[in-house]
């Protein structure tokens, strides 16, 4: 029985020796795309693609994704054993949209040689039927997203630029490139459509998690034919951000508890005029929001005068039956009507101040999604070496990493020889104490950082964080491979210092073509 057939169960027939491992880091720009090729002693190849995305294509960038897709097809003979999408961020999965046709995901236009994928691995957080996802994670993310978008509407474009930049991880609003063809379906985001493709394009995906009691196959994948064993280290169900401390069955409104965030969201939602579109494709309904709104009112209705009524009364110079003239004149004198923009105390108004918390909410939102990342530790059984691919998992995820079969996580770290640095080297996607500082294989540890420094600096983002970079240099003794460093990205070269690598064990090859699509890190075994 060949292992190349589309089977849910993996073969346990033979045990082979792994003779070569090639990690191809593609260079899309600010994004992740890794093609791992394992070769065994019979010359057979096992291919795993981890992520395929770019944040914002630079000029011609969407084309670059398609070129990369072509390269993947030609390199793999249009066949991949396992496709992994770590989490729902644009810089990890947008390629599946840009290169939709080439990959064969477009329902109408299928190429001659579409990509064949034997299995798709996603984190359990992508399983829409999972109770923890349905009851806690999805409604929470939805509410948060609503809150942020509503706040942006309220604040206006100029005041919310920082949030807009941050939300690029969620993908663009508009059709980014007319070459993409079919327009977005009404409602739903680009991200959700890509996920739909991934969930159906190549059969039903497997939803993995670190410690599944009922289905051990979800946590550990043994592929003895290639001498590898893959441990799922995260995301853990116990993470607080993912509702770990909540009981999914507790009384809620569609999983929405009344708390600071939802109380804010209910208020912010009033800024939105076209509520129907805003709620389209969401599980949260207008009545959910109305209920939250009611519960989060600070005072009984009888105590308050709505600002709308008050302003109307002031403008119409109401006689003061409903709202007394004293109240009207107090309001006019000490706060001012909103239309009187040049009233003397206009600079002291607080119309938008309450919306500024949305910046924090946006940060938390990015962080939540980062923490849904599927974290894989690939162990080369014979040598014991480990490759760590954590997606963009942040501190909270790192602190909860576990696996039903791993007694000592630190041991895995000790044996790590390749670490794909999370989130383009941002400071909180690599836990140093208890994480990086346990990767003590000073002679072999290599770090790969898929970062486009220029793009990052344009957004004024601190990637890679200097202090983290310093730590990485220490632990890898200089063996850091950066996607690019030059201002000529992406046609520049990857940056790494060959002197720091031991040529007996590692070969590094770069794509010679003018596109400079990839860099290969080849581990000899």
């Amino acid at each position: 029985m060949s292992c190349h057939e589309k089977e849910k169960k993996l073969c346990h027939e033979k045990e082979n020796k792994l003779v070569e491992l090639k990690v191809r880091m593609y260079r899309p720009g600010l994004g992740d795309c890794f093609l791992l090729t394992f070769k065994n002693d019979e010359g057979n190849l096992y291919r795993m693609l981890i992520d395929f995305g770019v944040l914002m294509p630079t000029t011609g960038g969407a084309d670059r994704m398609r070129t990369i897709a072509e390269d993947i097809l030609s390199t793999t003979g249009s066949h991949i054993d396992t496709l992994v999408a770590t989490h729902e961020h644009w810089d990890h999965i947008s390629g599946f949209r840009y290169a939709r046709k080439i990959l064969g995901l477009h329902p109408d236009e299928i190429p001659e040689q579409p990509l064949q994928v034997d299995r798709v691995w996603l984190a359990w957080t992508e399983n829409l039927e999972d109770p923890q996802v349905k009851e806690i994670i999805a409604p929470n993310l939805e509410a948060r997203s609503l809150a942020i978008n509503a706040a942006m509407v309220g604040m206006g474009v100029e005041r919310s630029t920082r949030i807009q930049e941050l939300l690029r991880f969620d993908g663009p609003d508009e059709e980014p490139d007319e070459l993409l063809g079919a327009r977005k379906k009404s409602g739903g985001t680009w991200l959700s459509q890509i996920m739909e493709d991934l969930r159906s394009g190549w059969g039903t995906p497997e939803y993995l998690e670190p410690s599944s009691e009922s289905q051990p196959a979800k946590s550990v994948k043994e592929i003895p034919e290639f001498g590898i064993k893959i441990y799922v280290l995260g995301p853990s169900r116990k993470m607080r951000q993912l509702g770990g401390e909540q009981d999914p069955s507790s009384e809620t409104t569609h999983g929405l508890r009344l708390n600071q965030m939802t109380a804010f969201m209910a208020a912010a939602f009033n800024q939105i005029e076209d509520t129907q579109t805003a709620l389209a494709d969401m599980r949260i309904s207008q009545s959910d929001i109305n209920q939250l709104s009611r519960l989060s009112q600070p005072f009984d209705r009888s105590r308050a005068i709505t600002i709308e009524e008050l302003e109307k009364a002031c403008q119409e110079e109401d006689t003061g039956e409903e709202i007394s003239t004293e109240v009207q004149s107090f309001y006019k004198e000490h706060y001012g009507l909103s239309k009187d923009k040049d009233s003397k105390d206009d600079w002291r108004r607080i119309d938008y101040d309450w919306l500024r918390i949305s910046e924090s909410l946006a940060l938390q939102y990015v962080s939540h999604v980062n923490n849904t990342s599927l974290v894989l530790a690939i162990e080369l059984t014979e040598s014991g070496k480990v490759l760590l691919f954590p997606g963009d998992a942040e501190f909270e995820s790192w602190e909860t990493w576990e696996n039903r079969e791993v007694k000592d996580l630190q041991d895995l770290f000790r044996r790590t020889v390749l670490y794909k640095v999370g989130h383009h080297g941002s400071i909180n996607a690599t836990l140093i104490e208890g994480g990086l500082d346990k990767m003590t294989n000073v002679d072999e540890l290599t770090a790969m950082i898929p970062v486009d420094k220029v793009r990052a600096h344009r957004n004024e983002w601190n990637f890679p964080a200097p202090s983290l970079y310093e730590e990485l240099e220490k632990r890898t003794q200089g063996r850091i491979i950066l996607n690019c460093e030059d201002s000529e990205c992406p046609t520049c070269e990857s940056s790494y210092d060959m002197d720091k690598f031991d040529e007996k064990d590692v070969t590094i090859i770069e794509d010679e073509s003018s596109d400079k699509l990839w860099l290969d890190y080849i581990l000899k075994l």
Partner: protein
Amino acid sequence: MSPNANITIPEPKSRMLQVFAFDPSLSTDLDTAVINKLTLNIPWEKLESGPVGEYLEVVDIDPPSGNFYPPVDLDHPHLLVQDGLSPSEGTPQFHQQMVYAVTSKTIQNFELALGRRVLWSPRKQNGGEEFVQRLRVYPHALRQANAYYSPHKKAILFGYFPASKQNAGRNLPGGIVFTCLSQDIITHETTHALLDGLHPYFAEPSNVDVLALHEAFADIVALFQHFSHSEVLKHQIARTRGNLSSENLLAQLAQQFGQALGKRRALRSAIGEKDPETGLPDPSKIQNTREPHQRGSILVAAVFDAFLTVYKNRSEDLLRIATSGTGELPEGAIHPDLVNRLATEAAKTSQRILNMCVRALDYCPPVDITFGEYLRAIITADYDLCPDDRDGYRIAMIESFRLHGIYPSNVRSLSEESLLWLAPDNDHVLTNFFKSNQFSRLEEIHKFERYQKRRGETRKNIFRFNQAFRSTVRKWMTDELIEAYQKEFDRESDIEAVIQDSLRLTLFSKDDMQSVYIDDQGRPELEVNSARLAYRVGPGGRTMTDLVVEVNQRRHGYLDPNRQAKADNGTLDVDKYPGDFTFRGGATMLIDVETGDIRYIIAKNIDSDRRLNEQRKYLGSPATSLRYTYFGDPNVNYFHGVEGQGEPFALLHGDDLEED
């Protein structure tokens, strides 16, 4: 017999207003049900609806809910005779009353400690300063677990939020928590406003202590103001059997706040952490603590420990009497007389500590304040009030700061004498400058003194007069002082050498410091940012007056040392390429108004490479949070204009905002 219509009824001196003693959540706990009401004694003033008075205007607009709550009229006769509205969480007018009352109380304490009227920080507009009469207070401005003083809007914004369902502590799960009903939070934010009014440059993040001091000072005032309520103290002392260092209600700031967020303990505990074996704090903790609230709480812990030391000393004899020398109190409740005496001791001690901390503000450098300098300010200010440290307050402070790892720099030892500020003894020109009657400067100072001490003068006029006087002083410093130096010394370099030790500013443009801002006459710009009167006790118990003058200068500061060097030597055009940050130097002088003696000069050198490097390092330090990664370091952004400044005085900063 007809009543005599000519009797004039004097205005009352105070107004009584009810407030919650502790955060209202505690009402559901029978243990404190008895005392969760307090009647504050506020200075009398005529109030308009709002309330709107001399210092404050409460505007109860709630933008998140789209609501407005009608203002309360505290001068209504019904309210006047009942000490205002009764405490009620569901009545917005009571909230308005409470914020007015607690804020006014805080202002009163400040004015008593400093001996003068407080002014809010002026609005910087069109290169000038605009007087701000009233601080705006918005009791229900935000829908989040936070509150902040906005230096841009000269306003305090309070938030409200649902209590966390789990770990709500004593709050009703899902009930609404109002930060405007917490005395601690109100006092804390008001203190930010008061400190900002006194020292506007203490909001400029030039070193790791600056913002931390702001937070610490706000916490200190909140904490010790709490202790000044003896009824509350009595209950607490009875509960802890006299030992206030165990965890207790009083020392837990913003308790409700923390509980509602799902944390069991208060957000910041003034008692601090002690080593379980030695019972001592960890002096190295401060080296690793940079976040302003956390770093500030170390300073708060130091002051609180000093308070405890003095309180213990002062109550020792009481305990000796009560235990007949054994030191062991009998089981059960302690005698109510003892409780009363202990409460009195605690209240007195805390009042004194509070005063020490507030008075110290007049003995600080104008810019770039550090914890060590604040300690020296406390010691010097207290020495001026009470030369004989009979009760050991100063020793307790010095010792406690030491145990927490807070040391002033440039002192020979930690003895009291070494910590006192010094007079400019080696600069005879400066020393004589304000004395000489020939140039009528002393006369001007006397005029200023008379004006400031006039009763019934409006704060607006005080501000205006103040502005004019500062302008006068500025002319003295830039014109007449230079002339005085030039008469005395032949060479500019000699003058500079002398000033290096006294004013530490630069009066002449220098070729190697062209990063200094210059005025229209081509001379280094000099700002007199403050002139005010401070009081002390002289020999024989006489009250004496000092004129406090603060001057400062600024330079363009660059994160890249090479660019800095170029700016300094003139090869980089600072107008075309302004600095990444502002580097300041300055001096505070305390001048005896009677004699014109400069009693103390507290200066920060404009030419200090060390300080410049420190600020560069501080602003260039690696980011350690998601927020900084995407939005940049707010400290660096501070120098890039108002938009980047955000709100530096929030109770909680972005990353602390918990989710549940």
